[in-house]
């Protein structure tokens, strides 16, 4: 049984059909990349899975439980977490706090015992810290030591990206939805993040659903690739198969001149 199963997903905003009959599945321990031109519906897909939007029809099943109708925080509880394309870190909080906060939903203490720091609360807080350090360690010494206590707004852009991924990992989710994890990074940092994503799967045991524009990253780490265009699935398969698929080439580059529509209009 697949870890995540999406079937016949539909979503429209007013008159715009943002998602039409999209269906796919993610196996446990897999890295599945979702690619497609701008406006293809990649982020909408993420928003549907994580409960930000509610699908018009269709089903999303995670470990055989439907995610439809649940709130984002409940979906995190079930084990699906995401990162955001345009960073949404808690900028005034420290790196450590940013990685501790996502563990709050696992806390089994009332606010009273938190205020009075009961032994049970202290133990959980200690465990949360250890878990946070474990997740931050994926990124090497960059986010450790003194940077732990710096507010996120003092970090470089690449470090913020790393913090965002660490934060999603700290929720304790098994399936991570990474929305353009390498956006705005230079080639060296992209190579590094590629390695980290692979290690997240191999060592961390995460299953990863990835939206990415950098094709070299996608080609390097994806087990399978899903291509969306105008809210429809146009291809699915290995990276090599997909990039050679004429439909995919057409979606990205347009038709050849002899195949183009007679009115000569350029495809978007």
């Amino acid at each position, binding site marked *: 049984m697949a870890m995540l199963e999406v079937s016949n997903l539909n979503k429209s905003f007013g008159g715009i059909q943002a998602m039409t009959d999209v269906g796919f599945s993610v196996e446990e321990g897999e890295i599945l990349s979702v690619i497609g031109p701008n406006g293809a519906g990649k982020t909408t897909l993420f928003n549907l899975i994580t409960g930000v939007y509610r699908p018009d029809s269709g089903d999303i099943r995670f470990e055989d439980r439907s995610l439809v109708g649940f709130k984002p925080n409940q979906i995190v509880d079930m084990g699906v977490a995401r990162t955001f394309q345009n960073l949404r870190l808690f900028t005034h909080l420290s790196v450590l706090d940013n990685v501790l906060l996502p563990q*709050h939903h696992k806390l089994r203490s009332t606010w009273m015992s*938190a205020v009075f720091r009961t032994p049970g609360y202290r133990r959980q807080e200690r465990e949360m810290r250890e878990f946070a350090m474990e997740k931050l360690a994926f990124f090497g010494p960059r986010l450790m030591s003194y940077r732990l206590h710096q507010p996120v707004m003092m970090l470089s852009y690449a470090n913020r990206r790393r913090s965002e991924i660490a934060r999603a990992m700290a929720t304790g989710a098994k399936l991570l939805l990474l929305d353009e994890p390498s956006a705005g990074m230079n080639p060296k940092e992209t190579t590094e993040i590629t390695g980290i994503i692979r290690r997240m799967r191999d060592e961390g045991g995460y299953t990863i659903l990835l939206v990415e524009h950098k094709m070299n990253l996608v080609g390097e780490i994806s087990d399978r690739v899903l291509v969306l265009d105008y809210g429809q699935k146009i291809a699915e398969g290995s990276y090599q198969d997909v990039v050679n698929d004429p439909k995919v080439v057409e979606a990205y580059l347009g038709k050849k001149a002899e195949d183009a529509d007679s009115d000569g209009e350029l495809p978007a």
Partner: protein
Amino acid sequence: MEDHPRLRNTVLTIAGLVVLALVMAFIDRLAAADDPISGIVKFSSAMAMFAIWGVATVSLNLVNGTLGILSLGHHGFMLIGGYTTGLLILSDQARGRILDSARSQMTDATLGISISNWLEAFGLTGLTTDDTLWVRFLIAVFIGGLVAAVAGLLVGIPSLRLRGDYLAIVTFGFGEIIRLSASTRIVAPLTNGALGFPGVPQAFGNSTLWTFGFLAITVFVMAKLKYSSYGRAMEGIREDEIAAEAMGVNLAYHKVLGFAISAFFAGVAGGLWVSWLGGVRLDFFLFQLTFFFLVALSAGGTGSITGVLLGTALVVFVRQYGDPLEEQYAIATWLVIAAVTLAIGALGVLVFRYLQRLRPRLHPSIFVLLGAAGVALVISVIDPGFIEGSFRGFGMRAIFLSVLLIVIMVFRPEGITGRAEFSWAAVFRERRDQPTDEERAQDAWLTNPELAKRLEEAERAARGGPDDDESEEG
């Protein structure tokens, strides 16, 4: 991880609290003496007012600062706590006088609601004497807080689905609804309508020791809450609601929780406030109160308990000691006051530019301010006939406070402390967010191995002769 000298901090905190308690007890003794030192009574009552308002502002800070929700209904929750505490603690003589009064809308039954009667019903007559009034006061304040917290829940659950301006308007509306319902006929037997009732014991609200005790408890709870997992979740909601929800924070639960805790302490502050004033009346709980709290929050630093207390001190002491500003003076005297204020302003600008390392240090505005001060001074000295007469500075206190707030907002929009909190670590300059030399070197290796290698070589050369140690590989 344990690089924080915990024991030292705890010892220092307890020592500080003991010293504070001794000072407050001393002030109480001086103020209660047969022949009090001049001004001490006023000072002690100002200190008590600071502590009471401190309870209110620190609790408002949980909603406005930590949760990032603009709530304007704090006076409503204070009113609920105040009326509840007032009714529960009323002395028998005061009850009798209210019943005798022709205009009283209160009845025998409603006046029977009292802690003393309840304690008697349980056979605890030992707790109904005058000596044990403090037990009843504590119970009354606690119940007042609980009733306010329930009101906070009732207001919070429907309204916290809204965001931003809309939520602010709704909370303001609820605050006013609470205040105006207190004067309606339905609850008049409990509140005595718009008249309210006198006779609330003043022994606690006017005692600096008692009020600072309540303030200490409030600060303890708020600080512990802020630095707990719950506080982190609430700060996450302030920073980015969508991200907080995507990280598993239950928005509705944490907002309502924060709102109810805040309302509880507002109710406690209300109970202390009626004790400070010695009675309950509708106009003790005007929207103005919330407005002054907001001024204290903004001036001190929204989100920082330390800053909020500083802001509260500012507001309270300007209010209590600003009366010379409202007296009648000759216009020439006013001109001298204006000249001094302008000169202080010029000095302030100079200090600000110096601290902020702004160039030029002598900004033209300094000369403008000094020039204006000079003109005012010269006119007052020449004392020409056309400016004769005197002027009463009616409302000058509020104007002074407003100008002060404008100045703070211009030069330090985040408030006096910003988001920073007082901590012993800061006092001892233990900064954990700065790299040690070792960490700096490691950073250099990560970002630019070439440069790091060269730096290391230069350092080695400076030390004299190459070391035998193998150099690290990048």
